[in-house]
């Protein structure tokens, strides 16, 4: 593809590289763009990515594995979109996705991205685990299979396969059962929602996933979907309607907040918890939901809540978005976004770092361990905090 054929050919040169995109809203540091925070080279900044993309499409530089890694290290966290003062800002992440799309088309991908997409295609999850195992997280819990109940609980790949995230998925299912919610899960019939596939630029595969999922949900009669992951929430809420999937979609924090508000969950108590909250990008910046998770935490008696310096639209991404949870181009350093974020959480004096996303849960859990903070800062999903609050 030449630059002229690029969807954003008329826009991509408009980035001045002023560097606003590196900052959080309060200008605290230049570390709010995850790849830039990790590598601190201009090539990894948002402006660098756009200029390199343009140079590549203009044939000024050639495709290399390194170029591909630079583009794929973007977690699509949208900090740049929030910070860029120019009018084309809404398209910044889309430009990166479109450039990745071109790499997908021509088959020039980093090995880890290839593997990710291959696994989704073959197994319906990026882990390469068998489909049959997808429902095992709920074994012996008594969670019903979905057969037309009011809500379909969509757990997603991370909640289904990752042992740490499974615990949180179980907590969520237990809360829903105890609150008497009519819901079920698809178990082994559940498949990847496709959010990361979309962000990795594989629009064809995304389309297949979306269409199959929509068909499946329609066949089972599902109309209301509660997602465990904000990534799935984003895909289903913002992209599925293009393929005829108009469901009522809730992130589980919105749903739990509703249960608290109408008294289905009450008497939550967690004494001596000093909590700070990490906003997931796909709930916060992508879907502007900052309140529901905080409202839940406020409803728990005994919780002292403290904000991190960078919160809400300024939150530093954990580094797991845009496929990086698996392809891991940002790991392996104390400058990895997750480790930076763990330190930021620790600085607040909190003893619990609350999250509302299974990917953030795993990323930050590992980061807290790498930082040797595990016995001072516990990473808990909000579902786990609620279940603790109910059990006391």
């Amino acid at each position, binding site marked *: 593809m030449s630059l002229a054929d690029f969807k954003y050919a*008329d*826009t991509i*040169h*408009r*980035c*001045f*590289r*002023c*560097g*606003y995109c*590196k*900052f959080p809203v*309060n*200008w*605290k*540091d*230049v570390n709010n763009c995850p790849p830039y925070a990790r*590598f*601190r*080279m*201009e*090539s990894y900044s948002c402006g*660098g990515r756009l*200029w*390199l993309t343009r*140079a590549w499409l203009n044939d*000024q*530089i*050639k495709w*290399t594995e*390194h*170029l591909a890694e*630079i583009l794929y290290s973007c977690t699509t966290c949208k900090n740049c979109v929030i910070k860029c*003062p*120019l*009018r*084309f800002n809404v398209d910044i992440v889309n430009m990166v996705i479109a450039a990745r799309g071109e790499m997908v088309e021509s088959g020039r991908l980093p090995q880890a991205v290839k593997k990710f997409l291959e696994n989704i295609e073959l197994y319906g999850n990026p882990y390469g685990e068998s489909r049959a195992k997808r429902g095992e997280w709920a074994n012996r819990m008594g969670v019903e299979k979905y057969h037309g109940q009011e809500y379909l609980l969509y757990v997603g790949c991370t909640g289904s396969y990752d042992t740490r995230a499974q615990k949180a998925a179980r907590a969520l299912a237990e809360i829903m059962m105890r609150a008497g919610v009519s819901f079920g899960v698809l178990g082994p019939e559940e498949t990847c929602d496709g959010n990361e596939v979309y962000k990795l630029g594989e629009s064809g595969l995304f389309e297949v996933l979306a269409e199959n999922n929509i068909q499946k949900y329609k066949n089972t009669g599902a109309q209301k979907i509660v997602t465990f992951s904000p990534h799935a929430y984003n895909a289903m809420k913002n992209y599925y309607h293009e393929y005829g999937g108009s469901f009522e979609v809730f992130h589980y924090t919105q749903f739990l907040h509703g249960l608290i508000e109408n008294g289905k969950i009450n008497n939550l108590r967690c004494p001596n918890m000093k909590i700070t909250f990490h906003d997931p990008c796909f709930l916060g910046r992508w879907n502007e939901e900052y309140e529901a998770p905080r409202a839940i935490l406020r409803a728990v008696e005994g919780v002292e809540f403290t904000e991190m*310096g960078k919160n809400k639209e300024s939150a530093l991404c954990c580094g797991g978005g845009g496929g990086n949870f698996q392809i891991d181009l940002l790991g392996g*350093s104390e400058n990895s976004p997750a480790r930076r974020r763990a330190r930021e959480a620790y600085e607040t004096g909190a003893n619990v770092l609350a999250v509302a996303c299974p990917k953030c849960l795993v990323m930050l859990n590992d980061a807290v361990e790498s930082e040797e903070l595990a016995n001072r800062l516990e990473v808990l999903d909000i579902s786990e905090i609620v279940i603790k609050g109910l059990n006391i």
Partner: protein
Amino acid sequence: MDSIYEALVNIVGKEYVSNQPEELYIYSFDLGTAEPCQPQYVVSPRATEHIQGIVRLANKEKIPIVPLGGGLSLAGLAVPLKGGILLDLKRMDSIIEVNENARYAVVECGVSQGQLTSYLEKNYPRLTHSEPGAPPAATLAGNVMIHGQGDLAQPYGFNSDLVNGLEVVLPTGEVCHIGSVAIGAGWFTNHPLPDVGLFLGWCGTTGIITKLSIRLFPCKRIRGVGTFVLEHEDLVPEAVYKLTHTQMAEDIVAFSSAIPPFASELQQITVNIAADSEKELEFKQEILWDDTLGEYIHRGEGAYLGFVRHLQRPQISKTSDYKKGGGFEYVGSIVPIQRYPECYRKGREISERHGIPYTVTGRCVGAGHSMMFAWTFAFNRADPETIIQARKALHETDDLVLQLGGVIWKPGTYGQKLILERLDPGTKELMGKIKRLIDPNGIMNPGNWEVA
């Protein structure tokens, strides 16, 4: 095997050195109209010792070193004109000390303007620094290196006048300190030792600033900006002179632009006002607008457009996105304020000749001692012809500055050549001697200030 690459890796670690095409490409550009030039290596040091090691290596290998801060000076000053090692200094980003009583901050060279502002707002809300209108990613060191001016330039002067001390790695690798810190007395003053200020304004050709102490100032509780408009450019110097006499303003900036068309030809003056109470604010507003500028209103030559509380963070000039082009560059100059009308008129002519809507700005430096006057030219990054036009306009404007009796501020290579042609031979010789002595291998940002 590339031995220089290996040596750099040994100094800063593998992750912070690159000789790959992607990094070489990105670091070959300035954001303005300067032609790109590729470095051979990009290195991002974290400590003064790293920089010493890199400088020693560069001397051994006789390879250029080009220091880079935010890379926002827009005149190609950190483009590696002769290749070499591009030193991205932004990882040196610790705020080392803020002394509240003596009002100064000691920072590493990669600390950005935005970072310091945010830090002060959070931890020392009664202190502020003179922040330039540059994007907040600009570094403090890069700014004093080019004699920048911030939003307290009117009361306190150039930012390079506000330096209380420096730590510098010399071109041969030694570290030296300037100011009170040189005798271990802290970072509170640049005087009264013998003046060895050989670094500011030299664009990194005489050494690399690794730390600096910068003066801070009282930050009043209420800060805001008032706007006054004058119908004719001839009125601006007198109005600014009167405003400076009140000693009640922080920043004073006059500007005019072709867009929006209804305001074209009018001269706007923005005045930053700070106060600790409503009473103080009211008093200052009365003195500034009624007593000082009221006469222009009475004569029908001017109008007060209002006061907005809170200072806006510096906004990247929307000029860069003029006609969705993504680029602009400006010529800055330091000129007497009396020259404002001619600067405006002649600059406008140049813009119109090159088919670029005019944008001119003049910021008062000191109590009317001079003004930084800038002519901005937008271009379309995707259209090489517009870049050539803008470059021509910039060069014509460099010539204009000297014709008007001004001094080009942060000149690129074209402007530097014009200045060196006119420079007092004695001064030029002194600069040459200094340069030969201090940088015997000529490795420091070569292509800039070539006097040796």
